[in-house]
């Protein structure tokens, strides 16, 4: 097990390396630079600026310098947010995005599994049809429609919830409700459909027939014999689900004006804020890589048929 974890951790290094390299050159290949959009800067000042950020050096040299800095966990200074390093910037925004993402995924998993179980046990009854229509709707309706509509109804018309902000603001935890509801919708829908399908499949399986033939109560059959096998595929989905949440949070943070990474991400891409974009990409990749890693380990713990060597 330990060996598996170590090997799995080591295998993330090349992935991370590919991501850093790819984004670095992709960003530098684009025309324009961080200072292109500012007011006319005298050439000598621009020269100083470029020198300060080492942008006068040839590209490969900059690349290796950047790699070295990253190895020392130094993501450099921001070009636009003056006097702030990328580390500072991510330090304040990352916890916000992480809280949002983890809450959304937790709610999505809980509700998704619950709805999936109900649907599967009431297969082809009205509860099932209702739940599965909601699930298809959840997959079909874009986040950027749900978010504004929720805001319109619950904040602007009913005035129950604040339109924007985050936990630190005056409205406190009430700010969390709509962003989490919005962000959790797609993974909730997928998990509900997935768990319904796999529960139905497992209920028809031979080993559940055996369990029934032993005279076990139906609720024991479901909780002890059906759910564990049926919910295993849901665990594998959590990795990709997190990727979806990361992408979705870019939109949700923008709609609800949440001070997370997603909000500065799009802005810094527009601004050619090289170091911030790179920092964002690295953080996002780390999140995804660790999510997949946790899922793999979890799967191994839950499925006795898998042995790690």
């Amino acid at each position, binding site marked *: 097990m330990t060996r598996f974890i170590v090997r799995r951790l080591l295998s993330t290094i090349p992935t991370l390396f590919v991501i850093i390299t790819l984004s670095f050159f992709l960003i530098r290949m684009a025309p324009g630079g961080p200072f292109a959009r500012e007011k006319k800067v005298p050439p000598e000042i621009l020269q100083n600026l470029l020198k300060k950020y080492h942008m006068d050096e040839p590209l490969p040299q900059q690349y290796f310098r950047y790699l070295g800095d990253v190895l020392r966990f130094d993501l450099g200074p921001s070009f636009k947010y003056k006097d702030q390093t990328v580390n500072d910037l991510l330090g304040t925004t990352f916890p916000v995005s992480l809280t949002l993402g983890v809450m959304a995924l937790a709610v999505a998993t809980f509700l998704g599994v619950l709805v999936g179980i109900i649907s599967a046990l009431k297969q082809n009854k009205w509860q099932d049809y209702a739940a599965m229509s909601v699930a298809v709707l959840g997959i079909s309706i874009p986040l950027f429609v749900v978010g504004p509509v929720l805001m319109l109804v619950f904040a602007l018309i009913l005035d129950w919830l604040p339109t924007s902000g985050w936990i630190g603001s005056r409205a406190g935890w009430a700010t969390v409700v709509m962003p989490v509801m919005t962000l959790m919708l797609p993974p909730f829908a997928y998990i509900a459909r997935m768990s319904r399908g796999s529960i139905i499949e497992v209920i028809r399986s*031979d080993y559940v027939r055996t369990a029934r033939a032993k005279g076990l109560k139906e609720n024991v059959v479901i909780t002890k014999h059906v759910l564990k096998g049926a919910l295993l595929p849901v665990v594998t989905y959590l990795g990709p689900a997190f990727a979806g949440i990361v992408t979705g949070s870019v939109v949700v943070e923008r709609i609800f004006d949440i001070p997370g990474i997603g909000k500065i991400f799009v802005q810094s891409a527009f601004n050619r804020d090289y170091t911030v974009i790179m920092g964002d990409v690295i953080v996002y990749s780390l999140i995804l890589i660790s999510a997949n890693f946790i899922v793999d380990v979890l799967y191994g713990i839950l499925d006795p048929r898998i042995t790690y060597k």
Partner: protein
Amino acid sequence: MTDDVILQVKDLKAYFKLDEGLLKAVDGVSFDLRKGETLGIVGESGSGKSVTNLAIMKLIPTPPGRIAGGQVIFDGKDLIPMNDNEIRQIRGNKISMIFQDPMTSLNPFLRISTQMVETIVLHQGLDKKAAKEKAIEMLKLAGIPAPENRIDQYPHQFSGGMRQRVMIAMALSCNPEILIADEPTTALDVTIQAQILELINELSQRLGTAVILITHSLGVVAGMCDNICVMYAGRVVEKGSADEIFADPKHPYTVGLIKSVPRLDKENKQRLYSIPGQPPNVINLPECCPFFPRCDRAMDICKSKYPPVADLGNGRTVSCWLYGEGK
């Protein structure tokens, strides 16, 4: 004669409502099972033999299936009208089952101990520790080496034959009166098959358990069973003692089945016989003898009416227009 009958199946019907029509998987099956007896139910796949036994345990998936009529009298009580609670007292306790495919019949996510102990605790009221000891004892009886170590393993750590032994140990752990074995050897290697049958035979005799052995192989039945039911298209076409049926089969289908068993003791160089045609699709089957298209002795009446049961005495019955009043 009837006093030692422990299970009486009377005119049992199990229908499945499918998109294509009504599938009468079991259509009026009757037989008796006596204490300690081994009854073989023989038929091709799709003849309704497995569904008959699932219906006895009320394990038919509903919907689309339902028990459409008949009685299953066990211990003086009819199981069919019982509610879930009552039937659960029977399942795994008085009547237990083992299934065709040991690879999929054990829960892959639970240890063998968990799966065995839950049954014993449920039906015998033992605590977990005592139940585990009982389980180990049963595994030993079933011929699992080092059961005290292996009991905490998962099913995938066992071979197919070993898993079927675990299934047998689990099924017999509550000393049931009846063991239903649904093609217990079909999915196993030929060399293992005989061992498993021998095990079932030996343990049932030792524990005094009656066995219903479902199989499509007459060879299996010949060695083990006291009595035989031959099923075709959801109905029993012939039943009687194993010796009599092998010595003097009546129904043309039984005749065909016996002729198609390869035999080493007979010195004939003829080709192995096989019954022509395919078993019928029993959905929307018209009123006729379903065997007539494959029968070499078919008469006109066979095409329009199902033959009544002809009692030949001594527990021997046959449903064919060649016998009884129809003759």
